[in-house]
């Protein structure tokens, strides 16, 4: 059973999608935030209860003790139950607890994964839970295993930068539609995506690495379809790759 960083789900409609699984470190940081919040509330309530203690000695201590216990156990249960698997710490770190089949958690799952913290937090600082998280295939602590839950990362969604498709720029390959058609036929989806990604990320590359990368990609596509010399004249490897991507991803557009 190999470790995986994604949760793959196949819907009844036959669509497969993946969710990124959260690692032990981000989960620990989320817990640390939650722990600090619980402690702040406990201290704040404790301060208020000292006033009550002056009037009714013993009652304040009883309330404080019960409240602290209820907060320690109830905090996670409340937020994960009513806030769709997100405590405040998880929200800050963009994590969410979901059923292992990608569905919303049932109340019993929320309760079990939170009560089993008692064993996960042993001996100190969630060592048992951390080890289980590292060892288990889906990064689950013992509470997650018993409750059939996983913690997923909610990715920051960025708008796909499709302007990299060289809209409005001259494409020397368009003068050879039969070769363009052959290129579309021979290039796989993965190869096209690789070229697109190279263009999207080109500004992040070191200048020398950029030249070398586009040289490699250009050679790869040239080996698939040889365009005549006039189509290649005066253009760099990077421009050539841009033209290839434009050809591939804008197949239905008129010239």
């Amino acid at each position, binding site marked *: 059973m190999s470790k995986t960083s994604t949760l793959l789900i196949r819907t009844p409609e036959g669509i497969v999608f993946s969710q990124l699984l959260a690692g032990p470190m981000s989960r620990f940081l989320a817990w640390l935030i939650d722990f600090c919040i619980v402690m702040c509330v406990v201290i704040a309530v404790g301060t208020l209860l000292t006033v009550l203690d002056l009037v009714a000695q013993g009652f304040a*201590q*009883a309330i404080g003790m*019960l409240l602290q216990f209820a907060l320690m156990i109830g905090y996670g249960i409340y937020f994960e139950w009513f806030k769709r698997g997100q405590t405040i710490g998880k929200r800050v770190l963009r994590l969410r607890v979901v059923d292992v089949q990608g569905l919303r958690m049932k109340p019993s799952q929320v309760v079990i994964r939170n009560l089993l913290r008692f064993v996960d937090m042993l001996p100190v600082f969630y060592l048992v839970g951390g080890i289980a998280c590292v060892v288990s295939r889906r990064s689950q602590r013992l509470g997650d295993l018993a409750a059939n839950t996983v913690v997923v990362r909610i990715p920051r*969604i960025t708008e796909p930068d499709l302007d990299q498709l060289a809209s409005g720029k001259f494409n020397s390959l368009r003068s050879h539609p039969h070769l363009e058609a052959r290129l579309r036929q021979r290039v796989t989806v993965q190869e096209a995506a690789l070229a697109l990604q190279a263009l999207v990320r080109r500004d992040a590359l070191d200048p020398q690495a950029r030249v070398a990368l586009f040289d490699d990609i250009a050679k790869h596509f040239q080996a698939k379809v040889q365009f005549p010399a006039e189509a290649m004249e005066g253009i760099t490897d990077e421009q050539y790759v841009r033209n290839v991507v434009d050809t591939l*991803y804008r197949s239905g557009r008129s010239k």
Partner: protein
Amino acid sequence: MIIDLKKFVANERPYWTELESTLNQIETNDRRTLALDELRRFHYLYDRTAAGLAKVSSLAAEPETRRYLESLVARAYGEIHETRDRQHRFSPLHWFLQTLPQTFRRHVRAFWLSLAITMIGALFGGFAVALDPEAKSAVMPEMFASHLGDPSERVAREERDKDSPSAGHMSSFSAQLMVNNIGVSIKAMAFGMTWGIGTIILLFYNGVILGVVCVDYVAAGQTAFLLGWLLPHGSIELPAIIMGGQAGLMLASALIGWGQRSTLRVRFRAIAPDLTTLIAGIALMLVWAGLVEAFFSQYHEPTLPYVVKIAFGLTELVLLCLFLARCGKKAERVSSKTSTPQPADT
């Protein structure tokens, strides 16, 4: 074939934005229910976005668009397909009078095993202190330090001290008992994930302490005090902790899966609601036991005759046994007659 990505995104974006906005509304307001038209539209948007995801995955392989669509489809999928066994309305009375005792009976073998482990521990503790009274100090935890002395001296002191503690003191004592006992029961359940080893050790050790205290007081001729002190709260507290062990052994059984053909995931899924029911019932029992121990058990003769305390404790025990053995039995019989075999969860 590679799709014209820019044209595709431009065409589909309004649908994706609409789905995202609907999801935001649903997720922000948990109680919001969609009207039939809204539901149809929501389902249409989900289908369309899922189809878009399939298209992008196979015909464009553009990671950012795919990640965006995966995120949308994952959220919508969770909302649309979550139809498993949803309770319409939770009725506390029905839960208490039917669900809890029925759940207990469904897993009664784990309870008997849990009780047996506790009793073995009690016998061990009893023999240990009978053979070597010094074993008491080695076995008893720090929180039971008051029981390390001579039982007769303690009884004389308690019966002499007629000043009743303040209500505030009793409240904090009661809270302390509740927190401690609920914690122990949750641990007894949670330690089931150590293949039951932790649960067995915890039950055995609890039994040892119980055996040590009982034999110590009986040997000192203080049986009436012991029963009057332990029974009022112990008749609820001890079964509750043993039920915690029952839950732990259920968890261990699901983890080990002896003689079960279903997968680990299915086994855990099957017992999850029962574990929750049991632990909630245990918490209720321990709240009651904490109140009784702080406000009733601590009063001794001559303030409160032992016979009254023993009668109270025995009555509680009989009622608890009747409750767990009989409540919800009729409904159970009716449902077993009317139920049809269900396909296995896969």
